[in-house]
């Protein structure tokens, strides 16, 4: 499940107007994921999608497939 994926793109105007830059942000909300589209100033343009955060794997299956990225060295105080 692409849980925390941002998508940056450009909306072109069919009438030849100025293209609009936007990014889609996935906001987890309880058992749902809300995909919101934000404009250049992070203003809300629209709600693109509301989907269920369905993960049908068992706790053991989730644990077996879990991984981590070692990034601690980049965040030293």
């Amino acid at each position, binding site marked *: 499940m*692409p*849980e*925390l*994926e*941002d998508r940056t793109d450009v909306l072109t105007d069919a009438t030849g107007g100025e293209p609009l830059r936007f990014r889609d*942000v996935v*906001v*987890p*909300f*309880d*058992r749902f994921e809300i995909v919101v589209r934000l404009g250049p100033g992070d203003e809300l343009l629209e709600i693109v999608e509301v989907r269920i*955060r369905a993960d049908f794997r068992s*706790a053991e299956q*989730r*644990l077996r*497939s*879990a*991984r*981590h*990225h070692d*990034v*601690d060295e*980049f*965040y*030293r*105080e």
Partner: protein
Amino acid sequence: MSAFYHTKPSGLPRFGDVVSGFHNATLKLGAKLDRDFGDFDIAVTHPKYLVILTPCCSIEKTVMSLAPLIQLPHPVFKNPFFAEDPTRINRHVPAKKTLSPTQWEKLPVEDQQERMDKADGYVFIEFYVYQEHDLLLRYEIPHDKETRKTGHYMVNFKDICRVESKAIDRGNHSELAKLKILELSVQARKELRDKIAYYFARVPDEDQRELLPI
């Protein structure tokens, strides 16, 4: 407000609850260790907030595990992906988002590719972040030569300590209920359970090699 916290918390003590009023003790040994018991100190602190890290069903008579709720290390906020929502640290993150864009661009291409080849995964495996809430005091962090305020806190799985009290009793939880501040939503508690399980279940490479079937 998102559904990070339960909107109608039960009076029962639950795994992941934010509580207050508990002392926190750390046993500190001297630099030279001795079979005949060397010097030691016991450091007692009084954290404003703590988190229950005993699984719900195991909060029984007199014993419970707690860890203090602490402020986030400010370098975390240098990555805009985490600054926008620090609770992303609790879930799997795509490789490219684990670093700030500046840090990512500085990586050699081979290093970038090696990281991109990995599936989405956790970062800061010993941290679990608690979302800001009106009941949690906000604090200042350095930000672009100035400061900004945040109300996000985190628990470090390395900080777990044990407390004993006759008031810790799931059957009679009236005393404990007085100290409860917040309860996680079912979803947030699942994420805490998954991450702490991963933290303790990691198998070191040298063990993994021996565990492989011949």
